[in-house]
Structure formats: structure tokens, C-alpha cells
């Protein structure tokens, strides 16, 4: 009988310990397919800017964290259904997403750009070098018109459920055919295969691919920011999880002040994308 009691006690203690560990453990969801934000090495381990930043933020928050992988198109539903507690997946802060989830302050920002294959008619378009859609000036509108003319009826590939898809659907660039892909890898593959005339994504997503694959993918036209492109990339948190939201905001403040975010951004992007 004594032995029985001992066993029960041990099991209960064990469960209690596990329960407490889990209470403090945060799960962070990322895609693992959007370099240099987040990706996987050849052994399948998650790597990239956000993976390292997540670990730094967790150190500051003194939380135990695990980073889990989730397909991009199911990212927000997975957060809402409690598969994990936070999203760090290069997800821009947009009004549409804020209807469903909350965002921390932005930790990094990065412009979007169109890309074509070398030799394309739309290589090296003569436009402004950057436009901000929050407040479109006459010059910016002229640039959009140039793009609309150049890509009229052309097929442009984007990853599904992204700010880039939203922008193309808004019609600001005129009438283009939109083809949506599950991952940015697939967009890159079809762009280099010539199935699509152009692609729209974060500018680094293309430069990173061109560098690693040796394919002739080059940026063209202006870089985009503001408007549909959101206000930087933040941590996605479930509505109502205000404690975690505050923790992340405080941790991002600290990481920024300590120069951790800039350091990581320069390491992964080649320039300071922190904000």
C-alpha cells in the first residue's frame, strides 16, 4: 500500500511540475518558408531573423518558448484556435488582420517590390524608386499608371493571403491577372520557369532567392510601402491576451534599445530593417 501511495504522489508531483512548466511556456508560430524572415536549414531546423529574434524576446520576457511551424494560409486561424500563442512570420500589421487578432508594435519593416526575369520587357521600368501608398501624390499616381500600362493583362504571382495580394486586388495597378501560391518558394519557381510574367513580394524575398538559386530574377519598378502594405511587421497575438501583448511590447522596446533588433536585421537582411 505504501508503495502505491508513493507512486501516486510521484505521478501527481510530476504532473504538477509539467503543468507549471506549460503554464509559462509560450508557443510561437512561424512559416519557415519566407527567407530571410524565417526559413529552414537543410536539417529542417527553423532559422532566420524572426527565429533568432523570438529567442531573444523570450529571454527578455523570461519565458520558455517553443517555435512551431505552420503553413502561411492557416496562420491566423491556427492562432485563434490556440495551436500557438503568438505569430512571428513576417506578418505585416494591417487593418484587415486587426479585425481578427491584435498586433504588438512593429519590430521590423521592409518594402515590397515587383520582380521579373532578366530579359523581360518590363525590366528596368522608368519609375520613381519608392512610393508610399498612405498618401498618393501626383507623381506616385503617375508611377502607378506606368505600372498599370506595363503589366496590363499580365499574370502576376503572389503568395496567398498576403499584403501583396491585397494590393493587386485593390486595382491600384490596373487590370492584372493574379495567380496565388501557397508559398513564396512556389512563386519564385513559377517566375523563373516563365509561367508568370512578374511577381510581387518583399524585395528581399527575391534578392535572397536570386542570390541562392543563381536564377536571373531582378527587381523592377518602385518599392512599395504604406496603404495595403501595412505598418511594419509585428507579433500577432490573440484578442484578449493583453498580458502577453504587453510582455511582447515591453520586450521589443528593450530589444530595440539594446540594439538587438538592428544587429539581427543587419545579419539577415544585409541592412537595418528594424523599426
Amino acid at each position, binding site marked *: 500500500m505504501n508503495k502505491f501511495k508513493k507512486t501516486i504522489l510521484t505521478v501527481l508531483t510530476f504532473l504538477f511540475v509539467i503543468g507549471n512548466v506549460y503554464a509559462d511556456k509560450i508557443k510561437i508560430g512561424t512559416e519557415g518558408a519566407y527567407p530571410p524572415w524565417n526559413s529552414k536549414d537543410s536539417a529542417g531546423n527553423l532559422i532566420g531573423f524572426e527565429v533568432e529574434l523570438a529567442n531573444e524576446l523570450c529571454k527578455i520576457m523570461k519565458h520558455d518558448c517553443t517555435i512551431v511551424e505552420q503553413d502561411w494560409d492557416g496562420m491566423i486561424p491556427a492562432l485563434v484556435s490556440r495551436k500557438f500563442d503568438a505569430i512571428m512570420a513576417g506578418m505585416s500589421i494591417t487593418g484587415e488582420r486587426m479585425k481578427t487578432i491584435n498586433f504588438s508594435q512593429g519590430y521590423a519593416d521592409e518594402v515590397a517590390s515587383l520582380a521579373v526575369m532578366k530579359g523581360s520587357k518590363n525590366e528596368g521600368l522608368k519609375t520613381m524608386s519608392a512610393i508610399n501608398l498612405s498618401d498618393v501624390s501626383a507623381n506616385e499616381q503617375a508611377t502607378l499608371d506606368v505600372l498599370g500600362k506595363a503589366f496590363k493583362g499580365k499574370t502576376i504571382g503572389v503568395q*496567398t493571403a498576403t499584403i501583396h495580394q491585397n494590393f493587386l486586388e485593390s486595382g491600384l495597378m490596373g487590370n492584372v491577372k493574379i495567380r496565388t501560391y501557397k508559398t513564396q518558394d512556389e512563386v519564385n519557381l*513559377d517566375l523563373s520557369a516563365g509561367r508568370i510574367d512578374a511577381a510581387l513580394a518583399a524585395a528581399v524575398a527575391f534578392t535572397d532567392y536570386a542570390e541562392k538559386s543563381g536564377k536571373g530574377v531582378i527587381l523592377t519598378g518602385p518599392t512599395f510601402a504604406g496603404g495595403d502594405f501595412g505598418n511594419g511587421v509585428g507579433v500577432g497575438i490573440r484578442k484578449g491576451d493583453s498580458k502577453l501583448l504587453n510582455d511582447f511590447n515591453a520586450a521589443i522596446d528593450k530589444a530595440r534599445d539594446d540594439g538587438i533588433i538592428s544587429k539581427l536585421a543587419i545579419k539577415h537582411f544585409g541592412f537595418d530593417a528594424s523599426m
Partner: protein
Amino acid sequence: MDFDLMFTSLPKLLSATVVTLKLLSASLLFGLIIGLLFAILRLNKNIFINKFAYGYSYVFRGTPLLVQIFIIYFGLGQIEYLRSTFLWVILKEPYWCAIIAFTLNTGAYTSEILRSAFQTIKPGIIEAGKSLGIPNKIIFYKIQIPIAIRQSLPAYGNEIILMMKGTSLASTVTLMDLTGVAKYIISTTFKPIEVFIVAGGIYLFMTFIIHNVIKYLEKKYSFYS
């Protein structure tokens, strides 16, 4: 549960069902032709022809449809030489890549279904035809094929239903079929349960129709009616 969303997404999903049905009917039609051809090759006495037909069905029944569609779409797209040939006109389009993959897949299963159906025909029936002086060709077209089709109806009905569900993989190569549009709606509303329930209901309804048509045909062409 957002019933409003279920209601508003229904028309979009129904129009996407047209794409699904197009993919299904095209691949079933081509698949039946290929299946019949390879079933006949399987019955050939020549060992090379026989093994070739067996190899085809072995490979396409032994690998997942998703892998096949990825090899045809993303894999072939990476071969530079191919892009300079006339084949690229077809392979450039996700629609045709999906139909090719589905056709080859369902063709492999159909060939096995038809082969086993041919083999179940009792030798007595063919001998009866021969003793009546009917030429071999006519025996094949007018006796063996109709019996084989009747015999294969239940198994082929299953294959149609499997293929109908298999077309959902078209969404992985950018096609906006029923599943593709469902995923698209979810990507803007972030409500997977509601949308997938409606999409699932449409798939179920299609299964219901196919199932009953096959049942009717089975009854109509029964030996015992």
C-alpha cells in the same frame, strides 16, 4: 458559427464547383480512353507490352497523386529544354498540368479495373460466340467490352468518387477549384470551419449524385433484370 458567411460564400463556391466538374470530366474521359488502352495491352501475350502496361499502372498507383501533380507542374517546369519546345504551351498552364496528372492517375486505376473485368468473363461466353461463327473482332467489341464495362461499374463508380475528391489537389497548383476558392475565402475571413463545411457539403452532394447514377446503371445493365 457565422451562418451569414456560410450563406454568402455559397454562390462563390458553387461557381468554383464548375471548375472542379470540368477538371473531373476531362480527366475521367481521357482516363477512360487510356485505361481501356492499357487494359487491352495488359491482356496482350507479348511480355514486353504486358510489362510496359503493368509498369505504368504500378508507378501511378504506387505514388501519391499530390507527388504526381507536383512533378508534372513544378518539376517539368524546371527543365529548361522543355520550355523551348511546343510542349511548354500545354505545360505552362496549371489547368492542363492538373488534367494530365489526373488523367494519368485515373487511367492507371481504370486499366486495372477493366483488366480484372475482362478476366472475369467466362471462357464459355467467348466460345459460344466462336461456335456461332462470330469473328473475333466482333466478339471483342460486342461481347467482351460490354460485359467488362458492366462488371467494372461498381469499382469504376468508386474510382469516379475518389477522383472527384482528388481534384481538390488542383488548388495546390494555383487553380481556383472548389477547394482553392474555399481556401481563398478563408484567407480573407480567417474562418475555416464555416467555409469548409459548405465546401464539404458540396463535395458530399456530388458524391451522392455520382453514387446514385452508378447504382441506376448497375441495375439497368444487370444480368438478372
